[in-house]
C-alpha cells in the first residue's frame, strides 16, 4: 500500500481506482456480516470462489464479500451488480445456478424473491417492498464495498469529504456546517452534535483532547451499529477524522463491545490500512494535522454505554458512572476534555460534509437525516431499516416490515431498549422523531424496534427489562441498585399470581422516585418500560392481579397446558417434550402430567392439529 503524503497523491489514487474499475462486469455480492455468516454465507462465498476459478471466469465475473445489507430474514442472500438482481435464501446449488445464469446473461427465475401479497416474483432489489420504502443513505454503502479493502471505500468517494475540508475549510466552518445540518446524536438522547463539538473546540487549548466513538451497543434487540462497524468501518474513521480536525482533538478511541468479534476484526484491519495510507497518524497528507485512533474492547457491561462509565472503562478501571457535572467535555478521559458520539452519528458526518448541510437537511421531517432501526420480534421482515426522520411508525411496521409474522395481531412496538417504552398499535400513526417518541412515553434510543403481538405478555416484557436492568445496575447508587431489584420482585409477584392492587401502587411510586433520584441514565430511564406498559396496558396488569390470568399465555405461574379432543395421537408432542410429561397410546388422545410439565410450550409449537390449549 502506498503512503500518501499530499492531497495530490490522494486525488490521483482516487481517480486511478475509479478509472480502473469496470462497473459493467457483473459482480456477485454476498453479504457476510455476523448474521449472514451464521446463516451460511461463508459456504456461498467458498462455492462462488471455487466456481469462478474452476470455470476460469476471473475476467468475466467479480465477487464481493460485504457487510450486512439489512434484509437479515432473507440471508444468505446474493445481489448482482449492475443489474441489481436479488436472490434470497440461496443454497450452494442455487449459487452454482446463479453463476451459470450470469455467464449466459440470464436470471434464475425460480430463485427470485416472491412478494407474498401478490404472489409475483420480483427481480430487482430496489423493487422489493422491504427496500422500496427505505431511504438508505448510510446502509446502501455497505453493498458497494468490501469492508476489508480500503480501496473500495476510496473508490466510492470515501475520505474525499475529509481531504477536501482539510485543505479548504477552517475548523470553525466545519463545526458551523455540522450545526447547520441539525444532526442530533443517534445514540439515544439526541443531543445536537454540532453543539457538542463546539463545546470541545472551546475547551482549554493545548495537547490532549479526546474524541470517542461509543460502539458499546448494549441495547438488547438493536444491532445497527454492528452492521455499520462490520460493513463500513472506514466511514466511522472518516467521521472521527473530521471531528478531530474540527475540534482540535489529537487522540481518538473506539470503544467496541466484546460481543462483536467480527466488528473488532474489521475495525482493526481498517485502522491498519488507514495508517498505512497515511490517512491516520502524524502530519496527515502533509497538512500538519495529526490524529490517531486506538481501539478498546469492552468486557460485557451494559452500563459502559453511559459516557462517564465508558470513560472509566477506557482508563482501564471498573466501569462505574460518575456524577455529572463535570461533563466529559470539561473533564473526561484522564481529566482531559472528551467528546463522545455514537457509531451512527459518526457515520453520518462524512455524508453531511460531502453533500453539505443544506442538502443533508432535505432528508427527514421534524428532525433531519435518516435513522436506522433494527426491526425485530414478531414481524415478517426482520432486518435493518433506514428511514427518513418523521416516517410514521405504521409505515415501518407494515410497508417495510410486512406486518405480523404469526397469527396473532400486532399489539405494540417497543423502542429504545431497556430505557425506552412501548407504543401501542393504536398510536402507530405517530411520526418517528425525538420529540414525538418522548411524548408517547418512549425514546428514540439507539434504534431497537421490537414488535410484539397478541402472544406477548406486557408484564413479562416489563419483567424481562427489569431483570436485565437489575443485573446490569452497577450498584454504585442505592436508588438504582435497590430500586430495580425491588421493581423486579414486584413484577415477578404479579407474573406469578401473587400480585395485589397494592403492588401496582408501590410499583408506580418506586418508578417515579427512581426517575428522580438515580445518578446516571441507566437508573433514571430504568422505570420507562414499567411506566409505559402501565400506561397503555393496565388491563393486562389487572387481569394478572384480579383474575390470576395471563391473557397472552406466557407467565408460567399462571398457565397450564392441556390436550383437547382435537388430538390425533400422532405422538409428535411426546417426542418434543423435554420433560417426558406427555403420555398416551398411539392414535389416542394424549395427556399432560401437570406435575412434570415445565410449561415450555414445546408441545404447542409442534402440534399440527392445534390440540394443545393454554388455560
Amino acid at each position, binding site marked *: 500500500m502506498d503512503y500518501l503524503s499530499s492531497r495530490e497523491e490522494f486525488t490521483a489514487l482516487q481517480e486511478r481506482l475509479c478509472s480502473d474499475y469496470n462497473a459493467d462486469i457483473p459482480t456477485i455480492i454476498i453479504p457476510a456480516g*455476523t*448474521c449472514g*455468516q*451464521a*446463516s451460511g454465507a461463508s459456504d456461498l462465498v467458498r462455492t462462488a470462489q471455487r466456481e469462478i476459478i474452476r470455470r476460469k471466469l476471473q475476467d468475466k465475473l467479480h465477487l464481493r464479500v460485504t457487510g450486512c445489507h439489512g434484509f*437479515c*430474514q432473507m*440471508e444468505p442472500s446474493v445481489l448482482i451488480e449492475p443489474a441489481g438482481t436479488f436472490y434470497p435464501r440461496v443454497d450452494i446449488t442455487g449459487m452454482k445456478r446463479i453463476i451459470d445464469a450470469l455467464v449466459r446473461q440470464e436470471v434464475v427465475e425460480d430463485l427470485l424473491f416472491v412478494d407474498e401479497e401478490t404472489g409475483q416474483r420480483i427481480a430487482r432489489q430496489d423493487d422489493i417492498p422491504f427496500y422500496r420504502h427505505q431511504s438508505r443513505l448510510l446502509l446502501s454503502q455497505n453493498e458497494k464495498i468490501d469492508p476489508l479493502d480500503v480501496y473500495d471505500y476510496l473508490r466510492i468517494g470515501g475520505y474525499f469529504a475529509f481531504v477536501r475540508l482539510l485543505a479548504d475549510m477552517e475548523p470553525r466552518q466545519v463545526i458551523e456546517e455540522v450545526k447547520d445540518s441539525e444532526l442530533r446524536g443517534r445514540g439515544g438522547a439526541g443531543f445536537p452534535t454540532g453543539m457538542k463539538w463546539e463545546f470541545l473546540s472551546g475547551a482549554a487549548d493545548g495537547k490532549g483532547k479526546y474524541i470517542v466513538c461509543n460502539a458499546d*451497543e*448494549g*441495547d*438488547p*434487540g*438493536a*444491532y445497527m451499529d*454492528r452492521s455499520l462497524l462490520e460493513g463500513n468501518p472506514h466511514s466511522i474513521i472518516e467521521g472521527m477524522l473530521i471531528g478531530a480536525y474540527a475540534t482540535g482533538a489529537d487522540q481518538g478511541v473506539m470503544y467496541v463491545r*466484546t*460481543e*462483536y*468479534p467480527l466488528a473488532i476484526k474489521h475495525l482493526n484491519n481498517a485502522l491498519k490500512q488507514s495508517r498505512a495510507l497515511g490517512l491516520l497518524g502524524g502530519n496527515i497528507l502533509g497538512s500538519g494535522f495529526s490524529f490517531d485512533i486506538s481501539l*478498546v*474492547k*469492552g*468486557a*460485557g*457491561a*451494559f452500563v459502559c454505554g453511559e459516557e462517564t462509565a465508558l470513560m472509566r*472503562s*477506557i*482508563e*482501564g*478501571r*471498573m*466501569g*462505574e458512572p460518575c456524577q455529572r457535572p463535570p461533563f466529559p467535555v470539561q473533564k473526561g478521559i484522564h481529566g482531559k476534555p472528551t467528546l463522545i458520539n455514537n457509531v451512527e452519528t459518526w457515520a453520518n458526518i462524512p455524508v453531511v460534509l460531502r453533500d453539505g448541510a443544506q442538502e443533508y437537511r432535505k432528508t427527514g421531517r421534524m428532525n433531519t437525516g435518516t435513522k436506522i432501526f*433494527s426491526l*425485530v*420480534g*414478531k414481524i415478517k421482515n*426482520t*432486518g435493518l431499516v433506514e428511514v427518513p426522520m418523521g416516517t410514521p411508525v405504521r409505515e415501518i411496521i407494515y410497508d417495510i416490515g410486512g406486518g405480523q409474522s404469526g397469527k396473532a395481531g400486532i399489539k405494540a412496538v*417497543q423502542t429504545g*431498549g431497556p430505557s425506552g417504552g412501548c407504543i401501542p398499535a393504536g398510536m402507530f400513526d405517530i411520526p418517528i422523531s425525538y420529540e414525538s417518541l418522548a411524548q408517547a412515553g418512549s425514546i428514540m434510543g439507539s434504534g*431497537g424496534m*421490537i414488535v410484539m403481538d397478541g402472544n*406477548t405478555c406486557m408484564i413479562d416484557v416489563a419483567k*424481562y*427489562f427489569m431483570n*436485565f436492568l437489575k443485573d*446490569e445496575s*452497577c450498584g454504585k447508587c442505592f436508588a438504582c441498585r435497590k430500586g430495580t431489584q425491588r421493581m423486579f420482585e414486584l413484577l415477578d409477584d404479579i407474573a406469578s399470581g401473587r400480585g395485589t392492587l397494592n403492588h401496582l401502587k408501590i410499583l408506580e411510586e418506586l418508578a417515579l422516585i427512581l426517575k428522580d433520584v438515580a445518578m446516571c441514565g441507566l437508573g433514571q430511564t430504568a422505570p420507562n418500560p414499567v411506566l409505559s406498559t402501565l400506561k397503555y396496558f393496565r388491563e393486562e396488569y389487572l387481569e394478572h392481579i384480579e383474575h390470576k390470568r395471563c391473557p397472552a399465555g406466557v407467565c408460567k405461574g399462571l398457565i397450564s397446558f392441556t390436550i383437547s379432543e382435537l388430538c390425533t395421537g400422532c405422538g409428535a408432542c411426546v*417426542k*418434543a417434550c*423435554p420433560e417426558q410429561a406427555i403420555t398416551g397410546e398411539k392414535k389416542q388422545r394424549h395427556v399432560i402430567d401437570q406435575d412434570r410439565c*415445565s410449561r*415450555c*410450550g*414445546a408441545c404447542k*409449537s*409442534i402440534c399440527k392439529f392445534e390440540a394443545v390449549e393454554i388455560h
Partner: protein
Amino acid sequence: MAVDTKKVDEIIAGYEKSEESLLAILQDFQREFNYVPEEGMEKLSELFGVPASKIYAMGTFYKALSLEPTGRHTCKVCTGTACHLKGASNVVDVIGRQLKIRPGETTKDMRFTLQTVNCVGACALAPVVVVDDKDYYEGASPQNILKNLKNYK
C-alpha cells in the same frame, strides 16, 4: 488449578505498565486460560502497584471475565429482547436441566459452561445459541438445541 506463569508474564510484558492496560490484560488472561487466574491478578497487583482488591473488583464487574475456570465449550444463549420474545428462556431452562447447571456454571466434567448473553446482534435468527463463540445456531428450540449440543465432546 495451576496456570502457566510464563504465559502470565508473557501477556503482561506485551503491555505498557499503566493502569490503562489492566482491562485489556485481564481480557487476554480470559482468552488464554478461559478464566482470570488468581496468580495473574496477584502478579498484576505487584507489578502495577494497584491493590489486588481493585483488580478482583474488575474481575467481578465485567461479565466477559470469569474468576472460575470455564469448560471446554461455552454455550451462550442469547437472551436479547427478540430472543426472549421467541422463547430463549425455555432454551436456557432445558439446557440447564439437561446439563444440571445454572447459567454461569460449568458442568463437573468441564465439558460445558452455560452462559446467557444480553444480545449477540443477530436478532433475525432468534432465538440464537452460540457455541464456542463461532458456531451460531439459529431458531433454537428446546427440541433441536440438545441434539446440536451432543456434537461437542
